[in-house]
Each structure stands twice: as structure tokens, then as C-alpha cells.
């Protein structure tokens, strides 16, 4: 199971503001956000793991060690032309969420909130780095890649998280699942990336417009 941990040389301030629920950036001090990003960098321990498997788009089976059928019409549409699937898991470790709790218990609420948002940004960054590596490897062999899709997106049942983390051996980077299918540490991401000759417009472009939380999410981009 190849390991690629990535590195956090900076955490994007604008993205952190977005995750903190600050949709527009004018009236909020950048310093608090910048400090949170720096604190997140110092505490985070990025780790990543991935696995290449064959994908049978007819039966929608992921042919990993313990093959399973991918459920959900939207994810199936997304992977329609894929011959190979790369499954991945990343985390920035559990120390940050502990620090967030500590800040809240010390009544440093805004710091805690910002650190949590910076941690989310950091996790996405590590996922982006691993994603970039996968894209490059695929391109070398002439494949195009789909955007990364996680359990819970669209109608991909969260319960398949169990199959996914088993297939990618996420326990090797200390990621586990609760009885409620939630990833621990919280700041972790699992996803699947399809490799195809040509990635057809799946009708589900990435972006906020197509998410079921479109109307209520405070982190919405558009």
C-alpha cells in the first residue's frame, strides 16, 4: 500500500475563512486566521495512503482485496468509463482536534473555531497533493482522471465507507471508523478517483451547485 504523506508548507487563508463560515472576507481580521493557519501547520501530522484497483464499470464492482459493489447512481455515473480506480485516504492526525477542544475549554472560542477551519483546509490540501500525484501517474500512461469522490457525496451511501477504508488499509495510517461510519481522526478524507481513457461529462460536475446542502451550507463557495 503506497504511502504518500505530503507536506504542509502553508495553509490557505481564504479557504480557512470559508470553512469558518465567513463567506466574504472583508470585516474579519486576517491576523486571527493567519495565526490559526500557522498553529495548524505546527500541530498537523499529515499522512496518506492509496491503492490502485481494477474497476468493472458494468457490474460497478471495485476489484480490490475484498471486492464490493459500489452503490449509488451518481457515483456509478461518475465512474462510468473508468477501468482503474485509485482509492485513497489522508489525515492530518488527531492532535489538532484535541487542541481545538482545549481552546474551547479555555474559553478561547474564536481561536478554536479558526483552528478547526484551518485543519479542514490542511486536510483538503494533503488530499490535493496526493490527488495531484495520482493524476500525474495516470497521465504518464495516457489515462484521464475523474475528480475525487468521497462516500457521502451525492447518493454514495456513507455505509460504504467501511468497505473503502478496509480496501485502502487506512488503519496503516491510523484512520478508523466509528459505529456511525465516521472517520477518526475527524480531519481525514477518503475518496475514489477513476482512471479512464476519457472522462465523460458525468452530469455531475464538481462544485457547490450540485450538492444537496447547497441552500444551507455556510462553507458554500458560490
Amino acid at each position: 500500500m503506497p504511502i504518500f504523506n505530503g507536506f504542509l508548507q502553508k495553509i490557505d487563508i481564504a479557504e480557512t475563512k470559508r470553512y469558518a463560515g465567513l463567506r466574504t472576507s472583508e470585516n474579519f481580521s486576517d491576523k486571527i486566521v493567519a495565526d490559526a493557519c500557522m498553529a495548524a501547520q505546527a500541530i498537523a501530522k499529515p499522512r496518506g495512503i492509496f491503492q490502485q484497483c481494477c474497476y468493472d464499470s458494468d457490474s460497478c464492482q471495485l476489484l480490490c482485496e475484498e471486492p464490493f459493489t459500489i452503490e449509488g447512481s451518481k457515483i456509478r455515473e461518475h465512474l462510468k468509463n473508468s477501468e482503474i480506480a485509485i482509492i485513497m485516504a489522508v489525515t492530518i492526525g488527531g492532535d489538532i482536534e484535541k487542541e481545538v477542544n482545549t481552546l474551547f475549554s479555555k474559553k478561547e472560542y474564536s481561536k478554536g473555531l479558526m483552528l478547526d477551519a484551518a485543519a479542514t483546509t490542511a486536510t483538503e490540501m494533503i488530499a490535493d497533493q496526493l490527488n495531484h500525484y495520482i493524476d500525474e501517474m495516470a497521465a504518464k500512461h495516457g489515462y484521464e482522471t475523474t475528480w475525487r469522490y468521497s462516500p457521502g457525496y451525492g447518493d454514495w451511501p456513507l455505509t460504504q465507507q467501511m468497505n473503502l477504508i478496509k480496501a485502502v488499509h487506512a488503519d496503516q495510517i491510523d484512520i478508523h471508523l466509528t459505529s456511525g461510519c465516521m472517520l477518526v481522526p475527524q480531519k481525514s478524507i477518503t475518496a475514489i478517483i477513476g482512471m479512464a481513457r476519457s472522462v465523460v461529462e458525468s452530469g455531475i460536475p464538481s462544485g457547490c451547485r450540485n450538492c444537496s446542502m447547497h441552500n444551507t451550507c455556510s462553507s458554500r463557495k458560490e
Partner: protein
Amino acid sequence: MFLLDGAMGTLLQQQGYLRPGDCPELSNIEHPQAIENIHRSYIKAGSDLIQTNTFGANRIKLNEYGCADKVKEICRAAVFNAKKAVDGTNTRILGDMGPTGKFIFPLGDTDFEDVYQAYYEQASILAESGVDLLLIQTIIDIQEMRAAILAAKEAAPNIPIMCEFSFSEDGRTITGTTPEAAAVLLESLGASIIGANCSLGPDKLIPLISRMSAVSNLPLVIQPNAGLPKLIDGKTVFPLHPNDMAEYVQAMVNSGATYIGGCCGTSPEHLAAMRQALDRAVPYKRKVITPPTALTSRTSIVYIGEGHPPVIIGERINPTGRKTLQKDLQEKNLVPIKTEALNQVKAGAHLLDINMGVPDVDQAALMENVVKELSMLVDTPLIIDATSPSVLEKALRIYPGRTLINSVNADSAQMSAIFPIAKKYGAALLCLPIGSKGIPESAADRLTLIKKIYNAALQTGLRHEDLLADPLVLTAAASTNAPKETLQTLRTYKETLKIPTVMGLSNISFGLPGRSGLNANFLAMALAFGLNAPIMNPLQSDLIDAYVRSLLLLGYDSAAHNYITRFQNQPIENQHQLKNNETLSPLKKIQQAVRDGSKEEIGSLLNEALNAGIDPMVITNDGLTAAMTAIGEEYGKGRCYLPQVMIAAETMQAAFIALKKALPGKFNITRKGPFVIATVKGDVHDLGKNIVIALLENSGYEVIDLGKDVSPEKIVSAVHQSKAPLVGLSALMTTTMPQIDITIQALKKENLTVKIIVGGAVLTSEYAQKAGADAYASNATDTVRLANILMGENQ
């Protein structure tokens, strides 16, 4: 100009010797004639050098095919096959070493030493089998390249090494190394020929070779792919045909390359066309450059010296005299040191000095660990501040770039210990003019000692561009002439030696008052006398002021851009600036302060209100609580944001502390509740819950926080024991929502008179009602409002 060869694997596949999943290197043993024939076809096409079929023949890569134990057999056979093909020709043999396929810790989980050993094994077998050069190619991460070159130099010291990185479209390797950083590092490590191969077609690769030629005079090699591949009918197809590749040959020559070949997608036909083009090509007169003195990290390069602006070396990562930092490091807590690094970089440091002189620890192991962590954390190159050979060995071995050793003095024993380490790892060296007779006072004497070190260094094979000099800084408190002498030394070095200068600034003010101002003045003077890199504290803004001013005055700041950016009048960053409106009543001012999150001002505003005779409870209810409620409503309407609510809550806390202090024993907020709160079983999200707790406590509730992933039984028991009138349950996902129902059932079964509020992104008021909750809270401020209503208060 020399022609290399093209792809091997594709030909083996085409000829039917290789099926998908087969180990290409095993063909050396299983189909030696086929390998020999492919070599011959390239020689016939005109190749001056051929690569042995050993790209993946290192122990780690071969392990993927289950033949890790066949390294020797495969490599020997490969060279044997190549030798048979070149027999009777002038073609030379490149012993090919490709990637292991693994990332090295901390980027991956493979140990540097394991990779080193694998390459050592491969290089020694290739060398003893008789290759003419070793080729390390298609490398995407700098650590792997370092392991390979170090191993190759050790295993085969007399064999020239050709090194090629693989770059992506953005002009960096996948892990971020630029062509300039690559070239400087490779040359310092002793590569003979440097360049790039694979991943890109000629059009994208050529500019990267040109960039290398701007920082190195070493011969350059380029081996592009035949364009970017596409998948057609299940096969990977490269678009550039032989004549297409040939058309790029002149451009390849003009980039400065004298070794030209092809990688994936090329064939003997491609190389034959390129041979013809090469024979016709107009040779390129490459500009001889003065090799720069430069330090690199994995992802960046910093030039020091003549023609480059002075650069700041951050001095803060040094535990001398800092008890807390020493303790942290002894306990292996690296968070403070990482924060220190980030702060310095943010403040403008271009390089970071790393000193791990902590008592009672294994300093070599600590330095190694810190270098590993910091080299991942910041873009900024690191400087290793140590003189102990064991510490230097550990640090330099693992540093993913070209570093500077701070420092070596004129003592023969120290020089003979440190020079070889610097040479081996390609490090630059800071020379200190201190010898057996102590610290020389005059500039002339210091120059003599530097010359001694310089000459001795060159004798051991170190180069002019590896050496930097320190003029020595002594405190102005101890000697009237010392500062002048330092400046004179800088001038003397500049005129005579022409190597970059580095000095520790802070010493100048040791033992004197007004240190930072004195440091700033001396910095400006030293920069005028030619100092290239001060070691200083970048967190002192008046030092950075002095630096920015000096750079403007010395002509390094065109259009005064940086100066203006730093010194123009910035609007005061104070969103929480109190509207100093005299007509606002004290209560209104307090409300405003909460609204704006003015934690600093709230104390004095409360005193003002108390002095005006306003009752503390009125202040609390009509000043503070009213403001929090108002901001909560605005948040609910989407007119302000959660962080602002949080800062307001912190201001409330500051207010309570101030009131308690002003009225000792007399000020108490009535404790409402208790309010038991938990995130349900299987759910671990707690940020929302924490925010609710913050606001509840602000409103005077005693909160019993059971945490996350809490079983129904535990919640029931807590409510029972505390006799809490209120309980809050949160769930974030559809998969944990059912636990809300289960927990509510469990509570109802016990016949407790507790009111249940539920919340969480996935919940709705319909669901809450169906589940039997007493209220549904759509956000944190809503929770407080509902709690008050359920407790019978009017809101």
C-alpha cells in the same frame, strides 16, 4: 554532442517478450538475445551511449515482482548483454538506475538507509560488471536522488554519474523541486552530467534544461518522451513520430544539452532520425556562468553573494539560555520549534539557522529529527549550526537539499573532521577566522586565517562557491574598536576573497542596553560594507525596518516597492474600533463592545458603567446579555458570521471576569440548569457542540459535557445523577441520526422530567418532533433561546 538511446520496455512488449505484469529486467536472463538485439538496433541507429536494461533492477523495486534476490544476477546479465552489443564499437554503456517506487520518510514510509542500501548494491554490481557511467534517471523526489548519488559515489567512486530528474508541467518535480535547485544540488553532490528525462515531451522539457544551464556549467542531458501519451484501444500511444522528434533536436542543442536521447515512446527509428538531425545541428556556444553560491530546500533556492540582495538568516531556533525551549525539546515536543520556524519565515527570514545544543539529550538524533520535520514544514532552506561531526553527519545525510554548515574554524583537527562531511554531502561551509591563538583582533589577521581555511578546503576538493566567511562580531561593550574592525573585515573579505559573508548580528549589543536599536544600526552599516547574510532575529520589526531601508538605499529595491509596502501608512487593522461617540450611554457602549468583540476595552467600559451607578445585574442583562442575544439573532438571519459570535462570547467572558474583579464576592451570575450535552453514539463531531456550550455558559448555564460518541445509557445516567432539567443531543450524519431516537426513548423510559433539545446539520424540526424531542435548535444561538424558553424565562 552525443546521442543516447530510446525506450526499451515498449520494444520488448511489441516483440512479445513482455506481458503486462512481467518484470522487464528479468528479460536480461530470460531473453538475453532479445536485449542484445535491441541494444544493437540503437547502436545501428547511431547511439553513442546505450542504457542497460536495469531501470527497475534495485532490490526494492524487484521485490514487487518477487525477485529481490536477483539483483546481482540481473544486473550482471544486463551489462553482459550490453557489452556484447557494443563490442567493436565506440558506444559507451550507461548503467541505468531508476526509482524504487517508494517515497522516503517523512514523505513516505521507506527509510532513507534502505533506499541507500538498495542503490549501493545496484551501483556496485553495475560498476564491477564494467559500465562506463552510472545513470540515475526518472527520479521525482529529491531524497531518492540523494540516496542514489550518495550510494553511487560510495560504491563506485571512479565512475562518472549522469543524473536526470523527472519534471511535471509546472516545471517542478512532483514533490516540488525546481530545475535550478536540482542543478545546484546535483553539482554539489558530484554529478558529472545533469538533466531531465521522461514525463514531458521535448517542447516542455527544453526550457527546463535552459534553466539548469543558467546555474551550472556541467554538461547537460535531455531525454524527452515522444510527447504526452493517450490511450487508444487499450494501448498507450505517444504522438511524436521520428521526424517530429528530429525537428526538436536543434532546440535541444540550443538549450545547452550535449547529451540527447529519448524516453518513453521512442524507438530506434526515432533515434535514427534524431541522429541525422544531430549530425546536421549547429553546435551551441554555451555561456560560461559563474557558479552561484546557493542553498536549497526541497522546493526552493536562495542565492547568496555578489549580485544578489542580502538575505536574512533567522537565529531563533537556538535553545541556548532558553529553559522552556530546552524542556520542550528534551520531551520531544516539536510544536514550539515548528511555530518558531513558521513565525520567522512569516517575518521575512530567507534562511533558518538550526542549533540543537540542548543538554542531556542525544543531540545528533534530535538534530536529525528536527531537520526532518522542519524541512517538510517550510520552503526555506535550513542552515546546520553545529561543529560536532556526529551531529553534522546525521543532519546532512537527511537534509533534502543543499545546506550550509555553520561553521568551521582554522583549527586543523576541526578542518580535517568537517571538510570531508561537507564534500560528501555537497554542503556549503561558513569559515570562522579563529585559530589556536584565539580571536584575532585585526581585519588583516582574520583574513589570513580565512585564507588558510579557504586554501585547505580547496585542497580537499571543495569549490570556491562552497565557501562563505564570517568577519566575527564582538560586543561593542568590550572593545571600542571591535565594531569598526568587523566592518573593515567585511570590506577586506569582499575585496580580496570575493566569497559571500555571513555574521551573527546580535553579539554586537551583548551586555548593553537598547539592544534592538543598536543591532539595527549595526546591521545597516554592515550591509553597506558588503555583508551578504546577517544571522538575526526577524521577529524584531525594527531590525526588519533597518533591513528594508538598507536594501532601498543600496539599490536592491527597484521603484522602492518593498519599502513603500512596508512603510506606507496602513489603516489600523482594528475592526473592533469603538465608535468614540460621546452621546452613547454606558450601556450602549457596552453593547457595542460585545457586538464588535472589543475584549480589551470592555473592562474600562464596565467600570464606567459601575461608576455611573448602574446596577451590575442591569449591566449584565441589558448590556451584555442583550448584546449577545442581538448578535445571535443577526447570526440566525445570516447577517453576521460564527467567528464574530465567538469573539462576542469571548468578550462576554472578559466582561464577567472584570465584573468579578470589580465586585469581589458581590457579583455572581445565577447558575441556570444544569444542561447535560452530548454528541450521540457513533458520532464524533464536536465543534458544533463546543460552540453551543460556549454560548450556554455565557448565558449562565452550568454545562455537563459528556463529550462525543456517548451511549444512551451514559446520557441517562448523567441526567439522573445531576437532576438536570435540560439535555442537548447532537448528531451530524444520517448514519448517526437514529441514535437520537434511541437516546430519547431511553430518557423517556426513565420518566425523567428533563426537556430534550436536539440539533446538528442533518436534523430537521420534523425529525425532531417525530423522535419525541421537546425542541429543535437550528444553530447554537437558537439553542440558548430555546433553553431559556423551556426553563420558563421570557426571551
